[in-house]
C-alpha cells in the first residue's frame, strides 16, 4: 500500500510537472506578441520594448522556461497582461464562483445520472429504458452552449421562470461575508436565509444546465453497471432468499453499481469545472475562472490563459488521484488485491 501510494504520488508529480511543461511549450509558440497586446493600441514601440523586458519576453526561450518553472513551483503563474495583477490571485478570487457552480452541477449530474441510470437498468430493454437511452444520446449530442442559449431564451425571455443572469446574486442582495467563498454556504453561516435562497436560485439555473449536460456519461455507466449487478450471481443469491426488490436494488444493485461512478466523476468534474464552463459562464455572466479564460482569450492575454489552463490541468490530476484513492477505499476487491 505504501509503495503503491508512493508510486502514485510519483505519477502525480510527473503529471503536474508535465502539465506545466506542456503548456509552456504550447504557449510559447503563440504568434501574437503579448507585449504589444499588453501595451495596447496607442503604445509606442519603446513602450512595447519596455513591457517585453518587464515580462522577460526578450530572454532566450530556455531562460524563460527556467524562470517559468521556478515560478510555477512557487505557485506564481505570472502577471496578467490585461489587468496587471498576479494570475494566481485572480484565479483564486474567481475560483469559488466556479467551484460553487461546478459542485452543484456535479451533484445534479450525479443525482440525475444515478437516478435515470437505475431507472433504465430496472426497466432494461423496455420502453422506459429506450426513452432514457434516447434522452442520453440527445443530451450528450447537443452543444451545451446551444442548450444554454435556448434555455435562457425560454426560461428567462418567454416564460420568466428565472431572472436574467447577472452574476451570483439577483439585484438587491449583498454578497455574504466570505468564509468559504460559496455564497450559499456563507449566507447560511451568516444566518441569512434569504440571501442563501437567492444565491441558490441564481446558481440553480446554470448548474442545472451543466449538470444535465454532464449526466449522460453517468447514466450510461450506472445503467450498465446496475444491469450487470442485478444480473449477477450475488443478486440471484439474494433473490433465492426472497429478499424484497428494494433491498436487492439497494444492496446488490446500487452498492456495486456506484463504484465505477467514482472514477467517472473525475471526467465529469473536469467537464463541469472547465470544459463546459468557459461556455456557460460566458452566457450566464458568471464571474468564475471560465469567464476569466474567455476574457483572456479575447485579449490574447497569454499569461492569464496559461494560468487558467495550468490550474485546470493540475486540479484534474490531483482530483483523479484523490478519486482513485477513494475508489481503492470504496472497493474491497481492489483493497484486497493491494493487500490491505
Amino acid at each position, binding site marked *: 500500500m505504501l509503495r503503491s501510494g508512493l508510486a502514485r504520488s510519483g505519477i502525480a508529480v510527473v503529471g503536474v510537472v508535465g502539465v506545466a511543461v506542456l503548456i509552456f511549450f504550447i504557449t510559447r509558440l503563440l504568434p501574437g506578441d503579448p507585449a504589444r497586446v499588453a501595451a495596447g*493600441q496607442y503604445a*509606442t514601440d519603446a513602450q512595447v520594448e519596455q513591457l517585453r523586458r518587464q515580462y522577460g519576453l526578450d530572454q532566450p526561450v530556455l531562460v524563460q522556461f527556467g524562470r517559468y518553472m521556478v515560478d510555477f513551483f512557487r505557485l506564481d503563474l505570472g502577471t496578467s497582461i490585461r489587468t496587471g495583477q498576479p494570475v494566481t490571485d*485572480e484565479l483564486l478570487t474567481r475560483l469559488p464562483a466556479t467551484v460553487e457552480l461546478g459542485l452543484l452541477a456535479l451533484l445534479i449530474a450525479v443525482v440525475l445520472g444515478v437516478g435515470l441510470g437505475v431507472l433504465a437498468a430496472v426497466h432494461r430493454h423496455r420502453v422506459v429504458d429506450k426513452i432514457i437511452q434516447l434522452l442520453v444520446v440527445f443530451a450528450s449530442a447537443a452543444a451545451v452552449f446551444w442548450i444554454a442559449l435556448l434555455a435562457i431564451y425560454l426560461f428567462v425571455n418567454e416564460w420568466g421562470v428565472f431572472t436574467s443572469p447577472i452574476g451570483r446574486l439577483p439585484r438587491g442582495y449583498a454578497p455574504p461575508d466570505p468564509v468559504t467563498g460559496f455564497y450559499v454556504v456563507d449566507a447560511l453561516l451568516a444566518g*441569512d436565509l434569504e440571501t442563501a435562497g437567492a444565491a441558490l436560485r441564481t446558481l440553480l439555473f446554470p448548474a442545472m444546465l451543466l449538470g444535465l449536460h454532464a449526466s449522460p456519461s453517468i447514466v450510461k455507466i450506472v445503467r450498465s453497471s446496475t444491469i450487470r449487478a442485478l444480473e449477477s450471481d450475488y443478486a440471484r443469491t439474494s433473490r433465492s432468499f426472497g429478499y424484497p426488490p428494494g433491498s436487492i436494488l439497494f444492496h446488490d444493485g446500487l452498492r456495486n453499481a456506484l463504484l465505477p461512478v467514482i472514477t467517472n466523476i473525475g471526467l465529469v468534474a473536469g467537464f463541469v469545472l472547465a470544459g463546459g464552463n468557459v461556455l456557460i459562464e*460566458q452566457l450566464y455572466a458568471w464571474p468564475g475562472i471560465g469567464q476569466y479564460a474567455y476574457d483572456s482569450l479575447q485579449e490574447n492575454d497569454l499569461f492569464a490563459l496559461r494560468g487558467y489552463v495550468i490550474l485546470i490541468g493540475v486540479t484534474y490530476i490531483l482530483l483523479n488521484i484523490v478519486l482513485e484513492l477513494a475508489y481503492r477505499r470504496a472497493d474491497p476487491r481492489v483493497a484486497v488485491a493491494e493487500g490491505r
Partner: protein
Amino acid sequence: GGDGAGKKAGAKEVIIAYATDVDTLDPHQLRSEAAYGVVGNIYGTLMQEEYSAPADGVLKYTGKSTLYLAQSATWNKDRTTLTFKLRPDAVFADGRPITSEDVVYSLRRALSDVGYASAIGTWLNISDPEKGIVAVDTSTVDVKVTHYSPLIEKFLAFQLFPMLDRSAAEKAAGSDDPWAAGFFGKDATESGPYVIDSQVKGQSLTLVKNKAFKASDTADAPDRVVVQNMPDPQQAFLALQNGAVDIVTGLTPDLAQAVERDPDLKLYELAYSDVAFLGMNNKDPVLKDARVRRAISHLIPYQTLRDEVMKGYSGAAYGAVPYPMSDALDPTGEKIAYPTDVNAAKKLLDEAGIKPGELSLTLSVQASDTVLRQSAIFIQSALAQAGIALKVNEMNDADFSTNLGKLQMFLDSWYSWGQDSIYQLFFLLKSGVFTNYTGFSDKKLDKLIEQAMATTDPGERRALSRQAQRIVVDQAPWAFLFTRNVLIGAKSTVSGITHSDDANLRYDRLRIAQ
C-alpha cells in the same frame, strides 16, 4: 429583481451594465470601458467639463472646461504658464488634503511611460514634465507650455489626469515599479465623488458616495453605483427590461430599437463624431492607386449601412472629420463624399486597369464589434457587384490591434477626445504617426497639420483644417462609412445622462426619480 435584505432602505442605487469587466483601476493603464467609467468617477481632476442644464434627461458638454478640484486656473499674459490653485477643501477620501505635490506627481505620472496617456501629452505642449510641472507652494501648481492651444484646458479635464495620492504611491513604488502600477492596478486613492465599496472580480464593482468630497454638490446623486459586467449585450438589455440593471451602455442599434419600443425604458441617443471607416492600406500595390480607393468608396452601400446596420442611429461621414466635430467640412451630418454608384466605380476601376473579377481583397474586422461585422457582410455583397471578391476576416480584438498597420483593408472607427479636427487628422492621417494605420502619406497634408498645431489663432487653425480635410476627401485613403451615435438605454426613472466629450457617464450627475 428582488427587494432583498442586503439592500439598504431608502438608499438610491444605480446598476450600470458595461460589456466588460473592470480590468484594472490604474487610470493610465486601463483599457476596459467599465474601468474607464469607474476611474472617471473615483478620481477628481483639476478642471471638469462644463455641462448645459439638463434637457430631456441629458446634460450636454458645452465644449468648455470649468474648475473642479482647482479653485482657480489662470494663464499668464503670453499664455505660456497656467497656474492652478487647489480648493482648500480638496481632500482624498481618507481625509488627507490634496497638495500641490500630489498634483505634480499625478500629472507627471500621466505623462510618463507607465501608460499610453503620454501620447496625448504632446498636445499639452509641455516639453519636459520635470521642468514644466512645478509646485509653487502647497496649494499652487504651475504648468508651463511651449505655446497655447485650445486643447490644453480641455485635456486637463480628462480623467487621464486624475489626482492621485503621491505618498501612497511612493510607499508602494519599487525599483522595478517606479510608478506603483501594481498598487494603482488594484487600489485607489479616491479623490472624486465616489469611493470603491467592494468588488466581485468578473462580476461587479460597487461604488458609494465619497463623504469627504466637496468639489461639487452630490446630495442628489445616487448613493451606490454598481458597475456590472454584462458581456452579452442582449442579456444586458434583458436585464434592463426586467429591472436587474438600470442603465446599459454601448447598446447595439437593434437593441436601441428594442429599448425605444419598451415604454418603461428610455433610449439616450448621443451624437458623436465617432467615424466608422473602411481603411485601405495605401502601401498595397493595388490600393495605393487613388482611383481604386475612390471606386471602392463609390461601391459602399451607405444608406443600407445606416438603415440596416445602424438602424438610423448614425450620421453621414463626410471625410475623416465628420459632423459634429468642430471645423467639420459638412456641418449637417448628411453629405457623402462618394455616393453609391456602381457605374462610377466600374469606370474608375477600368481607368485603373482593373477588370471585373480580377480583384480580390481581404477585409479585416474586429469580431467583437457587431456593427462593423455586419457592415463587412454588406460591403462584401456590394463589392461583388463590381466584380471585386472580398474575403471577410474576423479577428479578435487583440489580434486586430496587433496587426492593424499590416492589414490590407479593415473596418474600424475612431473617436477623438477633445472634438478637435487637427488632433483627429494628426493621429489618423499624418505620415509616420503610428495610429495612421492605412500608412497614408501626403506631404501637403502633413505640412498643414504641423502649421495648425503651431498656430494659436482659432480662425487660422480652422482654415488650415478645412484645407487639410479637402485633401483627405479627395485622396480617399479610407471609405468614410458613417458616424456612430452612442446609444445608452436606461429605465425611464433614470436621468442625468452626460453627453460628455469622452462618452463617459458622470455618476454624480445621475438622478433617480423615486
